[in-house]
């Protein structure tokens, strides 16, 4: 950060406003929170990896089909017009994140965030190839010999392998996974050359996701949390005096300092902290928790594990660094039920109930009516006034339906070219409809009509209002 004074003007000193981030070498640690992280991470990764391979009704269980603008989720198919539901789903998810952050701090960051989990996977690989913290520091400092090359290339090879699998899996949510994987395998094509059966875009996105995984989990790591992620900043704003997060019990720990075993350290005026610096060495964001709460902290609890293991060795009680709230730290009291959490819980409940209700009453049928705008009205031989409409029947149900189209309004409207239409599942059927009304009976120039489509099989029905234009009467 600081540079040596320049020779001619010794009194001026410069500081760098940009600086290379120091590489973080995390020490391997085991303990309760590391186990918790592993056992929450493994099912999540397994879910992520396996979900694209599960099929329901002959299609992937979760399939974000961009080409056909449909999101298949288990047995429900979402159409573009269900965008509001998707928006509400995200709002509820964000709100849940805030609720959890208010109570337990940034546990999402520390335990479940993909960035954290993939970083953990990459660190496990790093540890496997290069050894623990001290060995890695040494390896990075030493000259490039055969061993260093072998260890480094093994690490990057495994990193890239994991990245490729991640990339393929991720794209597997957009392109059905079996199709994607068979499309990626080289085979002899019709013209006799070697090739792969996949278009440019899926390959581009597989490569992009692979590259991003490698870059984020291998190289960027905590930089993403510190400088790119908006959620980490949001969550920090949710903290209050009763939020539980990793804290150092300064009253118990200070005065920190080294001591000999079985020494009466309290007589020397020392606290429980042995100043072993393990809590700093295990930290994935390289902070010293003993300096107090810091914005970089992802609440992962690794320093708690590190400190507890030292406390065990020293035969001191655990919890010098622990998950606790500011109030609890000073008064020993903790309340989980407080006005703020009740408010969050109630709001959460209302949103979830409203969302579930909306989802349950969702009709898998859409009717859209487009009036012919070319002519004010239609008039052929006879006593009728006619208007022409294109009725778009969108069958979002899982099975085929036969629909009858009907019209209702103030006057005796009737459909001239009425017929039944078969609409396949997922099809949008355009049916031109000519609606007539006797000239003498039509009084208004602009008349409201309601055009409906009703399934013959199930009675599933949807309607849309439109306007019937008549001659002007002035």
């Amino acid at each position, binding site marked *: *950060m*600081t*540079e040596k004074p320049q020779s001619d003007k010794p*009194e*001026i*000193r*410069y*500081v*760098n*406003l*940009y*600086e*290379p*981030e120091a590489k973080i070498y995390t020490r391997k640690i085991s303990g309760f929170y590391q186990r918790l992280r592993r056992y929450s991470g493994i099912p999540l990764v397994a879910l992520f990896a396996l979900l694209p391979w599960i099929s329901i009704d002959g299609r992937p269980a979760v399939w974000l089909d961009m080409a056909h603008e449909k999101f298949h989720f288990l047995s429900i198919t979402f159409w573009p017009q269900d965008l509001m539901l998707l928006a509400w789903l995200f709002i509820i998810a964000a709100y849940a994140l805030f609720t959890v952050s208010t109570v337990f701090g940034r546990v999402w960051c520390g335990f479940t965030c993909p960035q954290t989990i993939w970083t953990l996977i990459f660190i496990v690989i790093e540890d496997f190839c290069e050894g623990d913290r001290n060995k890695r520091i040494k390896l990075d400092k030493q000259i490039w010999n055969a061993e260093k090359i072998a260890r480094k290339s093994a690490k990057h090879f495994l990193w890239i392998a994991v990245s490729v699998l991640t990339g393929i899996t991720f794209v597997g949510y957009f392109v059905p996974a079996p199709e994607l994987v068979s499309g990626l395998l080289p085979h002899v094509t019709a013209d006799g050359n070697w090739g792969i059966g996949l278009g440019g875009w899926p390959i581009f996105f597989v490569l992009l996701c692979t590259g991003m995984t490698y870059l984020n989990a291998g190289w*960027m790591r905590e*930089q993403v949390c510190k*400088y790119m992620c908006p959620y980490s900043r949001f969550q920090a704003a949710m903290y209050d005096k009763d939020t539980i997060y990793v804290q150092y019990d300064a009253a118990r720990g200070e005065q920190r300092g080294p001591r000999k075993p079985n020494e009466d350290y309290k007589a020397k005026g020392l606290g429980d902290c042995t100043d072993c610096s393990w809590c700093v060495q295990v930290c994935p964001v390289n902070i010293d928790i003993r300096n107090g709460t810091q914005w970089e902290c992802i609440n992962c609890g690794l320093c708690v594990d590190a400190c507890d293991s030292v406390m065990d060795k020293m035969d001191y009680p655990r919890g010098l660094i622990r998950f606790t709230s500011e109030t609890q730290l000073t008064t020993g009291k903790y309340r989980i039920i407080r006005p703020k959490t009740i408010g969050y819980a109630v709001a959460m409940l209302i949103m979830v109930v409203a969302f579930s209700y909306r989802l349950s009453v969702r009709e898998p049928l859409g009717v859209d009516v487009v009036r*012919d705008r*070319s*002519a004010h009205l*239609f*008039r*052929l*031989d006879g006593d009728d006034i*006619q208007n*022409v*409409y*294109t009725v778009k029947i969108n069958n979002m149900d899982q099975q085929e339906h036969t629909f009858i189209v009907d019209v209702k309004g103030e006057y005796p409207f009737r459909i*001239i*070219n009425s*017929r039944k239409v078969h609409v396949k599942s997922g099809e949008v059927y*355009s049916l*031109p*409809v*000519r609606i007539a009304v006797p000239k003498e009976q039509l009084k208004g120039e602009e008349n409201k009509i309601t055009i409906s489509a009703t399934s013959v099989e199930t009675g599933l029905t949807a309607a849309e209002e439109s306007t019937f234009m008549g001659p002007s009467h002035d």
Partner: protein
Amino acid sequence: MTTFWSLWIIILTSTCIVLVTWVLFANRKAAVQPGSDPDDKTTGHVYDGIVEYNNPLPRWWFVMFVISIIFAVVYLVLYPGMGSWKGTLGWTSVNQLQNDQDEGKAAYASSYDVYKNMAIPELAQNDEAMKMGFRLFANNCSVCHGADGGGNYGFPNLTDADWLHGGNPEKILETITRGRIAAMPAWGPVLGEEKVLQAAEYVLKISGNEFDAALAEQGAKVFAENCVVCHGQDAKGQYATGAPNLTDKTWLYEGTRENIRQTIRNGRNNQMPAQEQTLLPEKIHLLAAYVYSLSHTNAK
């Protein structure tokens, strides 16, 4: 673009790039107050007694700025942007559109190829082909004929069995490709108003409407002398001239007494525009099949 505006843009853009680059590089370091503590982590800036802490941006962030500047320079060389500079790639929005349209044509060509050689009556029974036909009709024909092809005042109904120029597949194809012009001459100046009224009454009679018997009797003579050339002895019209059948209830301009008189007195001019200039033959083929299906099948 005039030279002035071209220069205006070039000078503004390049000045901005140079300025931004200068700001970026000039702010890599900050001088600290003389005599300050070397372990002090502030920048040395003091505002109203508030000291600015130095929390340096990561180096990769700085590098991203540099990459952005390089990108901007490369972009401005390759693409138009610097005033009237055309860019070395020769990109224009017009040829971009042309490329996209060509791609679209190539992408959809195969879907038309399937139907290109199928006979029109056979095609009219093909559900998938008729769905394409419907969309072609909606885009090109529905403005006049209505989305259902049912027609309007002056625009023929395509869903019935009555045809002006013939309703077999070849004739429909010809009508769409080449267009049709049909003219009913104005007979008012030739015949005089009296004979116009007589002829109108005769037409009302043969089409099964209420009529004045005396006038219609005179009208029959007028008709035989003047109208049979196009409408035929039996008044059933003929496809060659596009003269309509006058003995049925189908009317292009409504079959009221006043409208029929108007038609005879002032004549009618009608035109179906030729589509061969705007639509590919395989699209017209599909359209013809769709129009054919309107009057030949119930399920399209």
